[in-house]
């Protein structure tokens, strides 16, 4: 079967390289051009096999100076799990104080990926 080439924009960083990905007739990844770094090559391969994304969102905080702490998955998770992941993350609450980098949810949906805090939330001065 013949090879096919698809064009895509790399989303690893805001530079947004224009990638050309070549696959064989079965859709198996063969090669990529246009990437400025190795991460782009890994992204291209993943994008045609199992696309993954970092999921940034929030978790409720109890007793904090803010009602929410921003969080993200430590690593990209399969794109098809994003909504399911949101459903799970929504059920969590954490107690202040929260430190940046603190693991708030372990092994999200069995992906082996943790959800970490992306900021510090101190305890509410009033409590």
């Amino acid at each position, binding site marked *: 079967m013949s090879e096919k080439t698809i064009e895509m*924009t790399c989303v690893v960083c805001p530079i*947004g390289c224009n990638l050309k990905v070549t696959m064989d007739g079965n859709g198996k990844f063969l090669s990529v051009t246009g990437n400025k770094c190795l991460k782009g090559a890994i992204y291209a391969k993943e994008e045609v096999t199992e696309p993954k994304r*970092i999921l940034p969102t929030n978790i*409720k905080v109890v007793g904090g100076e803010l009602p929410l702490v921003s969080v993200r998955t430590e690593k990209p998770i399969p794109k098809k799990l994003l*909504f399911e992941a949101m459903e799970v993350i929504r059920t969590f609450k954490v107690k202040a104080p929260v430190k940046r980098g603190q693991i708030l949810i372990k092994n999200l949906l069995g992906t082996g990926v943790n959800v970490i805090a992306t900021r510090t939330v101190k305890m509410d001065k009033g409590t």
Partner: protein
Amino acid sequence: MKRLEYDVVILGGGAAGMGAIRGALSQNASVLLVEREASTGGVLNQCIHNGFGVRVFKKELTGPEYHEMYLEKLKGFDAMYEATVLDIDSESRLLKVISASGIYKIRYGALVLATGARERPFEALRVPGSRPSGIFTAGLAQHFVNLENRLPGRKAIVIGSGDIGLIMARRLTLEGVEVEGVYEIMPYQGGLTRNVVQCLKDFNIPLHLSTSVVKVHGKERLEGVTVAKFIDGNPVSGTERFIGCDTLIASVGLIPENDLVDKEIEISSSGGAVVDDLMRTSVDNIFAAGNNVCIHDLVDFVTVEGEGAGQNAARVAKKEKMPKRVGIFKKGKGIRVISIHYTTATIPFKMYVRVDHPMDMAILRINDTNLKTVLNAKPSEMIEFTLDPTKYNLKGEIELSAVEAKR
């Protein structure tokens, strides 16, 4: 009135202001930050998505991570939070600042403006119809969702395809809001391609180009909008259709924030502070950096600009003799925005430009010399290059242009 004195005073503690603090501290200057909010970080605090730090930290971070990690580098500056500047007197180098603790008169050696930008409101589009609740700028909606734990509504449309609008289309979708579509009056997108891919295509949110709102419906709360096709900025009659929605998110541009200083310093036609390669404005002891100079794509660029402004402000405060401007940049064919307007031709510096329309391949030129070739050049994606006075003649009138070429 309380009196204070500092070498460098920085207005605004977002990415540019924090960069300026670092730059000024590196020159052993005494530094005061004047900030409107209760903390540093500016818009980074509500930008909980990833995509920051690729240049400055060599890894991809979210906005809050970028803010905290950069703040950890800053030791030994004073700050006034929840404070606002009432007046700047550049001749006697005096600032009047008010905060909950009183009114202050502050003498500065040099000033750095790092006031960022504000959002162009939906009102600026002058769309006919009613003005019910449910109309938000993208950044305001972002503040509600990401910092206050509130949703703006249940079914939304996004007007304008700027980056914050695209990011909010994804964010609202993930939070269970139905995002009907993104409508862009221009025939091309307003934000980064990366965001069209990961915010819209990933979630099957349609992007309607050459389409925008012609009427707003609803009395108390938004009930819907009428959209139509647009050609050259004008609606095409017969193409109108109604979309029911309770929320309209406007992402229709950013305006450099210079209201405080537009009588003091030279302002460009796009509303930015006009600066030279030292990030110095038309007043010798006032510097500027970040989105109040021109709207940037990457926070990393803003940080670097701020660092330069802070360093040079400290040198001025310490009475160092600074070079004079010897060159002036002109926007030539194909260029809409330039970040730097003058040069001292003493140091290599970063210039950022935007092309004025999408080009399959753009050849950037400085006078008659080719600088750089860019594939898929778009107005939404800033082009960055270094101008080195030992390589190019940066004296007199210098024209920057972009010529479209075939691949």
